[in-house]
């Protein structure tokens, strides 16, 4: 998902740890001033940070099409959507800051590779249909993960998720709406729609992270309720929801082994290529270098602005103090 491979810290078992776990088991919310195990804090910083970075880096593949949106209305909708993602980043950085790390520190860690973001944003958006596919599939997968996180144990994170989830359904709808127009459009548009689904299907499945049997950090995070479902559960749910939508659009999911399983009541499907996933995570996805380069450029080019605004605010503050 937006936090795909979050390394979780092992818990020791002191009296304090046990009391903490009991609070979580009673579904109490943990708040910033409460005692928490160091591992819980560190894991949460990684997870929320990764989630925040995903929102921000996630602006880029869609921002790529804002200046080429085909109508004024599409341009306005896409701009509003990408602006929402920036807002999500902001809520999440604020949530992470309650754990004792600053937004600037997290940004530096993103830029020098110490912190990650979702693998999905390392794939290019090549046609207008990709704006449909991203909204439909990527925001669709994000919703799947974020809805349960509204009940996560850490209060500020849970509350950020509540605000974010309100906006996500609009994101998915606008994506599906683009797909629908394309799928019902001219021959060229249909071709674009199918091509977008072909390219984004497996990367979307990767968003949920590796299979549970290979997911070493899940157990502790689930016990702490900072991960609410297993990767495979969410992936299955996503496939079950998305396949009928693809059929409705008249598009073909690029998986010859995809079929409905009467016995399980779920779709059987082909796992994504996990070696490709590991390549992308290691920095070898089609757009990793471009995405980080774009974030670095924005950060470096903006330094004088941030410094200027701070210097002015400081002068104003000093003047107020002097006047008193």
């Amino acid at each position: 998902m937006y936090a795909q491979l979050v390394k979780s810290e092992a818990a020791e078992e002191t009296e304090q740890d046990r009391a903490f776990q009991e609070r979580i088991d009673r579904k109490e919310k943990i708040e910033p001033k409460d005692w928490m195990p160091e591992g819980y804090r560190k894991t949460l910083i990684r997870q929320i940070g990764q989630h925040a970075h995903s929102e921000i880096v996630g602006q880029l593949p869609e921002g790529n099409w804002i200046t080429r949106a085909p109508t004024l209305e599409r341009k306005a909708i896409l701009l509003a959507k990408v602006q929402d993602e920036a807002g999500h980043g902001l809520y999440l950085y604020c949530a992470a800051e309650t754990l004792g790390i600053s937004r600037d520190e997290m940004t530096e860690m993103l830029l020098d590779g110490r912190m990650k973001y979702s693998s999905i944003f390392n794939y290019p958006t090549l046609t207008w249909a990709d704006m449909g596919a991203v909204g439909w599939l990527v925001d669709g997968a994000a919703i799947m993960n974020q809805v349960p996180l509204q009940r996560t144990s850490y209060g500020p994170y849970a509350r950020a998720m509540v605000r974010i989830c309100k906006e996500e359904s609009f994101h998915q709808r606008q994506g599906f709406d683009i797909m629908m127009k394309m799928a019902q459009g001219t021959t060229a548009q249909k071709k674009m729609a199918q091509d977008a689904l072909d390219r984004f299907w497996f990367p979307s499945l990767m968003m949920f992270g590796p299979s549970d049997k290979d997911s070493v950090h899940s157990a502790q995070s689930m016990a702490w309720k900072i991960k609410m479902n297993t990767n495979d559960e969410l992936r299955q749910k996503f496939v079950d929801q998305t396949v009928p939508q693809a059929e409705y659009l008249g598009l073909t999911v690029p998986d010859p082994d995809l079929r409905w399983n009467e016995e399980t009541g779920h779709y059987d499907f082909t796992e994504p290529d996990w070696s490709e996933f590991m390549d992308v995570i290691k920095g070898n996805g089609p757009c990793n270098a471009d995405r980080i380069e774009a974030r670095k450029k924005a950060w470096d080019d903006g330094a004088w602005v941030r410094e200027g605004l701070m210097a002015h605010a400081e002068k104003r503050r000093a003047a107020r103090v002097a006047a008193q």
Partner: protein
Amino acid sequence: MSALGPLATRMGDNTLILGHRLSEWCGQAPALEEDIALANTALDLIGQTQMWLGLAAEIAGEGKTADDLAMRRDVWDFRNLLLVERPNVDFAYTTTRQFLFDRWHLPMLDALSRSSEPRVAAIAAKAVKEATYHAERSAELVVALGDGTAESHDRMQAALDALWPYTGEMFIGDDIDAELASEGIAPAPESLRDGWEEAVRTFLADATLSVPDSDFAHRGGRSGARHSEHLGHLLTQMQWLQRAYPDATW
């Protein structure tokens, strides 16, 4: 009323081109808050474009839409000020361009909200609220960055010097403007000059920026006679899908 179409086109082309320029910043602003604010302003301007070009299309008839006007005209048919087609360059240029425009846009919309033509008055009344916020924000940024560090000051001064010659065009009227003014549809452009100068000078003084001496004015945008080379590149990108797939609906 033959001058009404040109008025709507001029207003709509300004917001279309400036909104597009601002949308180029998406994901690249100096801070998240600025990214969000730039997108917000761009959104407002695109919304205003839909109203102004919608009116222009209605007047043009022949089943035309605002999208037809935005996406299917060539450079010589655009009627925006040269100022708004200037490239973003950096955050100083973008902020200064916005400031110089907002300080004209706000009183212009304010006057238009009292237009004798009800369709114009209705659009302007909606837009003036947004423009009030834009004008406050861009003035605050100009003051803060002008008065910030030595570097931010120098960058703002450079932007101001470069953009100043593109401000005069806002206040030079033609026959269309004379007709609009005589019928009480729009203010004469010249009538907005003093108020603009006064406001701009006040904020620039707060910003410790010096007002350029030259009163030379580039023109040719709002008449369409001579746009800059930049507009064609902007249109190349903005109109590409509609031009490449003319039969498609989106």
